[in-house]
């Protein structure tokens, strides 16, 4: 091959590689940007006075005196709204029955939208559902609710043969010439003093129990559940995996049985996780009854089966990478096989084993399918370690799925979904960073 051709080939390949890496980086940025930007929104956001009320009522957080002043200011700013409603009520009563009718439904809609924005009207009965006891707690939701107060969403089907068109009609049109007409202008102009938004760092999001199925509160039980499940899985998988790897590398005599075993392990690594989930249900729960219902224990066992092949593979690789010379040296000094493994091979293989372990830990933390049938519930409280043996738990991966697909008020909890995704990604990322650092440190120690 001519020199020119070789150079061209080299250049072409290196630029191809560069493009591939660039694309990967781009994809990573595209994925991570919304996760990070919206996920942090669950922790850092402009909270309204409703949020502060909620925090004080539910968790006794915040300074009561300050809150009282806060509330008073909000009440003062909101007073005209309720005054206008009362005035309009009086105006309605003075009207003949026939004139009254067209206002009935629009008024009801406005009152509902106002309740969602500001919370229940002072002096009325406290609603049963917690989500109706408070107005908009977050500023981004406040904007949406404000729109609902100002506009009604209608569909225009006037063009026959075409799809309907959504039209935002100002509600103020319904109340032209009444005492309610100035309300809309007032609400729009005074949304700030009525809601009193303030930048807040809600770090307790990580630890708080959710209230009213995630409408309020944090993701504490989910985070704890994920930790339990992951640690539980490691507890079963790591000892078994490492022992199996040692056996395969150091004790087993190569033969048909061992080859077959290796094939089995590879196959196990390729089995879809939902199959593990169903197996966990069928075996751990229905056959050997490790617990009466779904439980962290059953989920951990299922997850440990899922990551076992990875742990075995990583440990095997790490053990095989230990120089034969170490083994020979140990044996020539009169060390038995077991002793050689414990004193020479395992210490030298530790970085590799650790890396494999932590990577599979990340996998266990993020797996959804295996825990659907064995451990996860959508809402729960934080469990004590002993309860984990018999109780189900919410967990991040499953709740992300659940909140996105089955929650009755998906729009209200977008920030919770993103917060969960962000937390999960952060946990997995931290685990991996931890693995890399540990590996580097141990390798350095070994290299001297």
């Amino acid at each position, binding site marked *: 091959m001519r020199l020119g051709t070789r150079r061209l080939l080299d250049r072409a390949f290196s630029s191809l590689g560069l493009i591939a890496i660039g694309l990967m980086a781009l994809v990573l940025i595209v994925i991570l940007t919304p996760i990070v930007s919206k996920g942090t929104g669950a922790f850092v956001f402009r909270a309204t006075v409703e949020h502060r009320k909620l925090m004080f009522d539910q968790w006794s957080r915040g300074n009561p005196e300050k809150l009282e002043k806060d509330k008073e200011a909000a009440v003062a700013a909101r007073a005209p709204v309720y005054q206008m409603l009362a005035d309009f009520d009086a105006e309605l009563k003075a009207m003949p029955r026939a004139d009254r009718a067209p206002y009935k439904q629009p008024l009801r809609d406005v009152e509902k939208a106002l309740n969602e924005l500001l919370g229940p009207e002072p002096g009325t009965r406290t609603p049963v559902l917690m989500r109706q006891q408070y107005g908009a707690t977050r500023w981004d939701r406040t904007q949406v609710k404000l729109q609902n107060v100002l506009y009604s969403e209608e569909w225009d089907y006037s063009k026959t043969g075409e799809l309907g068109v959504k039209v935002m009609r100002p509600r103020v049109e319904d109340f032209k010439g009444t005492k309610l007409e100035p309300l809309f202008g007032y609400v729009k102009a005074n949304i700030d003093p009525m809601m009193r938004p303030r930048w807040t760092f809600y770090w307790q999001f990580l630890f708080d129990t959710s209230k009213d199925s995630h409408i309020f509160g944090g993701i504490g039980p989910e985070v704890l559940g994920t930790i339990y499940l992951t640690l539980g899985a490691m507890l079963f998988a790591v000892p078994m995996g490492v022992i199996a790897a040692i056996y395969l590398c150091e004790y087993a005599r190569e033969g048909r049985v061992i080859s077959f075993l290796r094939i089995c392990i590879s196959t196990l690594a390729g089995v879809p996780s939902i199959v593990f989930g169903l197996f966990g249900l069928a075996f751990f729960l229905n056959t050997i009854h490790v617990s009466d219902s779904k439980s962290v224990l059953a989920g951990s066992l299922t997850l440990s089966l899922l990551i076992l092949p990875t742990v075995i593979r990583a440990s095997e690789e790490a053990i095989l990478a230990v120089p034969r010379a170490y083994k*020979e040296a*140990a*044996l*020539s000094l*009169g*060390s038995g096989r077991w002793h050689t493994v414990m004193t*020479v091979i395992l210490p030298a293989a530790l970085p590799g084993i650790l890396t494999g372990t932590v990577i599979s830990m990340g996998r266990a933390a993020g797996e959804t399918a295996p825990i659907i049938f064995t451990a996860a519930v959508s809402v729960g409280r934080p469990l004590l370690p002993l309860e984990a043996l018999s109780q189900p738990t919410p967990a991040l991966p499953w709740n992300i799925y659940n909140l996105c697909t089955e929650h009755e008020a998906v729009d209200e909890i977008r920030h919770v979904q993103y917060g969960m995704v962000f937390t999960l990604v952060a946990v997995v990322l931290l685990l991996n960073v931890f693995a890399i650092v540990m590996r580097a440190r141990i390798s350095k120690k070994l290299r001297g």
Partner: protein
Amino acid sequence: MSEAIQMKRADRFAGHGEEDFSLRPAHVKTEEFSVFYGGFEAVKKVNCTFHEGLVTAMIGPSGCGKSTLLRAINRMNDLIPSCRAGGKMIFQGEDIYRKDIDVVSLRMRVGMVFQKPNVFPKSIYDNIAYGPRLQGIKNRNQLDELVESSLKQAAIWDEVKDRLESNALGMSGGQQQRLCLARALAVKPEILLMDEPTSALDPKATAKIEDLIGQLRGQYTIIIVTHNMQQAARVSDLTAFLYEGTLVEFGATRQIFTKPLEKQTEDYITGRFG
């Protein structure tokens, strides 16, 4: 062989070539000893005696089975699954290939130094103390003494005494090899096997190892495999020449290098092949 070559070679001998070695008691003796790798016979019915306190060199071209024979003495070949042995290997009156032999205690009595320095990724101290600890010595003072005496025997004490706790992998290749020797000595073996111990070292480090072999002669039975003919001549009392698995000639080093009985030996020594 020409007179001039004879003279030149003779100058380089260790200087203990006059003794009649056959009077020394045998330490290890092979009887019709063979080693097979699967169907391939790497060592063919070798009859050979390694005498107590002497240095025996094994020479021969690559693949002649000298390393295999050496590694058969402490049964390191057991690590290779397809490997098996035939005939007898008598060590102090016992066939070490008998079924009921405890390989671990055999290896404690037969130390080994390998081709490449294979120190453990542990501290210098822990490297030396590895063998004694295996034998159950836990007393710190006793260990300290053993470590010191072993390192002194291997002539490396002065270089490392201030950094016993640092990682052994931080030492130079020559130092590592002497550390390996010290580690083998710490077990207090009777026999020392050396599998081309200087092939990975520079001339200076090689000279140090050769000096050490000279100092250890008499205290241990040393068997050394080497590709370097001068080395064999310099350090050994007896030389075994192997070719394609067969022991071609075995005798006093001076005699092998000056008046080889076999044509093959002469050809190899004079560099006509190999």
